[in-house]
């Protein structure tokens, strides 16, 4: 009779098995998910849930003399899945920090470059303003003598100015073709180059009456290109 009572006491019950099964299923799925690169970090959630389920199952099994093999297996699998997911979390967290630092550095460089560009643009506008003032000043102080003969320019100086004008117009044409007009950097660059082109054109117009027929023809050819580029830019 005493022996029979002992057998009944030692008989395993189903206590905690439900939670153990749930923990094992969720833990196994979390383990598979945890091994998928990059996505693995998502397994932290189900892994943690599986650990909780397994622990609850283990407590119930302890209290109700339930079988513990399956529950311990569930706990091991869940801890393994959560650990792997946590490693992914650490790796991705590190990458995220590096990316953030890199982005901040790039932003600082861009900001500095844009500030420099703006400063150069301001300088260009000041230069253009001075050129325009000079041109309009000439027009206001209209002197038929000057109008007729224009300012003096040597062949050497003309060659220098016309070559630069040609290069600037070419640069402007390339910019119009390649630049994206909604990008501030391109807009600034475009403004700088167009201001330089306008300034050179103003210089050449001022000396116009003094130019030879050949020089005038060359200037007109380049100036025609400049006007075509400006039409193409539609700005």
């Amino acid at each position, binding site marked *: 009779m005493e022996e029979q009572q002992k057998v009944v006491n030692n008989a395993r019950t189903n206590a905690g*098995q439900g939670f*153990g*099964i*749930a923990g*094992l*299923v969720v833990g*196994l*799925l979390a383990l*598979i998910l945890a*091994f*998928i*690169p*990059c*996505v693995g*970090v*998502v397994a932290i959630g189900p892994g943690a849930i599986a650990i909780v389920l397994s622990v609850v199952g283990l407590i119930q099994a302890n209290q109700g003399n339930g079988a513990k093999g*399956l529950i311990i297996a569930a706990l091991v699998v869940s801890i393994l899945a959560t650990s792997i997911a946590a490693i992914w979390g650490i790796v*991705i967290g590190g*990458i*995220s920090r590096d*990316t953030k630092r890199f982005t901040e550095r790039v932003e600082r460089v861009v900001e500095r470059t844009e500030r420099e560009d703006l400063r150069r643009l301001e300088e260009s506008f000041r230069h253009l303003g001075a050129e325009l003032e000079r041109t309009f000043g000439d027009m206001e102080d209209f002197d038929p003598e000057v109008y007729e003969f224009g300012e003096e320019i040597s062949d050497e100086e003309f060659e220098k100015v016309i070559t630069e004008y040609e290069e600037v117009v070419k640069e402007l044409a390339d910019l119009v073709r390649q630049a994206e007009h909604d990008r501030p950097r391109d807009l600034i660059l475009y403004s700088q180059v167009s201001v330089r082109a306008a300034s050179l054109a103003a210089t050449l117009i001022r000396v116009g009456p003094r130019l030879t027929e050949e020089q005038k023809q060359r200037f007109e050819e380049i100036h025609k290109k400049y006007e075509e580029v400006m039409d193409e830019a539609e700005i």
Partner: protein
Amino acid sequence: MRLKFNRLFSHPYLWVNFFIGAAFLAVVFYSVVFSPETGAHPIPCVYTSITGESCVSCGLSRGFSHIVRGDLEAAAGTNIHSIPVFAFFVLQIVLRSLGSIAYLQRWLPLSALIPADAGISILGFFLAFFPMYL
């Protein structure tokens, strides 16, 4: 091969088989529901959302969607690993079903069935997932 309903969930092994099989069937269902062309799969890639670059597992869901539509070439083009990983999922569905039937029909004792099942699953798992790390 007549099964009694009350025996279907008589052992934890059968419960585990049922739920894991159901989870993998859900993956197949997910692949059927979401079209690879629209690219509207709701599971985002954490790595891509942080760095803006694609990773080794990007395109798996779209690859699965191509596979269930029979377009293996497109699946391989989307993500070459989608085929072995999907094959592992299908293997799991087959193993869960066969394992349960084998237990219920007593083709094998549980002491042989579980190690055999686990061994095949682990081997399949490594064959499917290991190339992702190369």
